[in-house]
């Protein structure tokens, strides 16, 4: 067993359409900072079908020192038992000190299952991860009670220290195509691949969880006045590649369906950018979006609550503001000539990915 400080830091990569999903690179950005602070190697572990060298190499270019691909058809699509069994076997053998995963439907399912198999702690939805210089422990900070408080959590005696991180909460690392690292491919034994769950069908749609995983969300409030005016918000959303969210008042009035509702009784989102359009910022709505990285509010009431949590606010009539803003954003994007994503069709963000 390597000395504790040199034990590797692992991130759990996920496959999507023949490449690592976009969240995998975000995790590498997080893991890189921790591994550097610990002077420990950073490995990406990727269960799923066999992927080409070039796809695995992209994880090294993003900052990993090694990639461990656990390759078997039985690992795709995701079911919990074989993923957890294969990962548990590798963790026991290689003893990473930290294991990070994305808080996706896959990460949120396999990580708590795995934590129990490994008899260790797991902290959900961390917004900040740091190494305690005194002990080398992972300090895991997360919002609780609907974002009313932040808690810093430590896993003092159990290893690995496990945490999930919200997707789209971390900027992508700049790839370095010259970075060197180790590629290791492993075919897990049949004994680890038993599953009592059978995948029958995948029905693609953008609406189910897309909102929660979008990088940018445009949230519409009652200020939009009627369903016919939603086109204005949709155009803004399109100019930002954003998913459309709504306040409860908008949903109650039937202007948008329930899957769009953000807040206490709707979805919790934590995008990199939340644009609140004609939305007052009730406590219940804030509970679902106040951990967004940047908040832009458009509201004609200078006293509106939403301005208290916003980084930037346009105080004016949304019917005047939106057309001008949308046109300017379209122009700015066109000027940049598309977005410099990691190439692949990262599957984690519906329209935003």
């Amino acid at each position, binding site marked *: 067993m390597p000395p504790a400080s040199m034990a590797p830091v692992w991130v759990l990569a996920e496959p999507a359409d023949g490449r690592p999903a976009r969240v995998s690179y975000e995790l590498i950005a997080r893991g890189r900072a921790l591994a550097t602070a610990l002077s420990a190697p950073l490995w990406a572990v990727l269960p799923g079908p066999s992927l080409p060298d070039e796809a695995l190499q992209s994880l090294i270019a993003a900052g990993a020192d090694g990639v461990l691909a656990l390759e078997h058809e039985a690992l795709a699509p995701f079911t919990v038992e074989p993923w957890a069994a294969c990962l548990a076997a590798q963790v026991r053998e290689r003893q990473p000190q930290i294991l990070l995963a994305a808080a996706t439907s896959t990460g949120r399912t396999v990580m708590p299952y795995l934590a129990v198999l490994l008899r260790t702690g797991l902290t959900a939805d961390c917004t900040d991860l740091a190494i305690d210089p005194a002990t080398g422990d992972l300090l895991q900070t997360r919002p609780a009670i609907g974002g009313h408080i932040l808690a810093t959590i430590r896993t003092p005696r159990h290893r690995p220290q496990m945490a999930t991180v919200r997707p789209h909460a971390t900027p992508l690392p700049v790839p370095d195509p010259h970075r060197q690292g180790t590629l290791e491919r492993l075919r897990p034994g049949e004994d680890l691949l038993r599953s009592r769950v059978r995948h029958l069908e995948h029905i693609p749609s953008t609406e189910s969880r897309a909102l929660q995983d979008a990088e940018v969300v445009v949230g519409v409030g009652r200020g939009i006045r009627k369903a016919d005016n939603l086109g204005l918000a949709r155009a803004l959303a399109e100019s930002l590649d954003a998913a459309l969210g709504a306040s409860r008042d908008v949903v109650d009035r039937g202007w948008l369906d329930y899957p769009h509702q953000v807040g206490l009784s709707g979805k919790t989102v934590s995008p990199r950018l939340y644009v609140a359009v004609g939305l007052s910022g009730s406590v219940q709505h804030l509970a679902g979006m106040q951990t967004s990285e940047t908040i832009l509010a458009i509201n004609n009431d200078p006293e509106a609550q939403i301005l208290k949590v916003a980084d930037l606010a346009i105080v*004016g009539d949304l019917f005047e503001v939106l057309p001008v803003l949308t046109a300017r954003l379209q122009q700015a994007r066109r000027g940049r000539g598309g977005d410099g994503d990691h190439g692949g069709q990262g599957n984690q963000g519906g329209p935003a990915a």
Partner: protein
Amino acid sequence: MRLVVPIKQVPETTAVRMDETTGTMVRDGVDAIVNPLDLYAVEAALRLREAAPDGTIEVVALSMGPPRAEVALREVLAMGADRAVLLTDRAFAGADTWSTANVLAAAVRRLWPVDLILCGERATDGDTGQVGPGLAAFLGLPVLTYVSRLALQPPAQCRVERLVETGRERLEADLPAVVTVVKELAEPRLPTLRGKQRARRAEVAVWTAADLGLPAEDLGLKGSPTRVERIFRPRLGRTCERLTIRDSADLEAAADRVVAVLNARGLL
């Protein structure tokens, strides 16, 4: 067939206030409610029972918490659960999700044979969604998360639809299994007057650590791998830059400013 629904009593978060000077939560006078997301799991279980021949399915509600969590169990009895078990013991206090799942798993084993365990997606206070999958791991059962549709498939299977980032998945699983359900599944019913009367008279079984036979070192705070080290208030008021619109020149300038800020933050 036996269905178990683990439910949690939580503070009503809309009522949670922060003490501005101390930065702590004001819990006084805050009502405790059944975790709203657990009501969907209760509803799912009741619908499965109603779809089956009379008397063939029993729905058991289970909660770990302080003695007053009995109130939450009675609410679920009023909705129509057949019986309720409260897991309460000082030794359980301070449990994290690992330790909570461990205690719930021991209780489920005591209720065995159990065919299906239905959890909420997450509790609104801890907000982790980790207990359901953790419970499945302790019991050595498969888990299906984010379930938006659910049907039993006799003799010993279930079929579900689950919500994932890219759409919906249809899956079949062998029973026994654990599922965690989302709101899309079914709108929870309100208790009827008769249900409330029945719930008031019903007996809520109380099990302690001794009944579950778990080693003391695995319980509560002592058995929890994670430690809360510090609780603090998030940076509340972000410094908001205001762009006030009085005329069309303001509007043009504001649009430029937004583009500049978003660009600087790498958001375009």
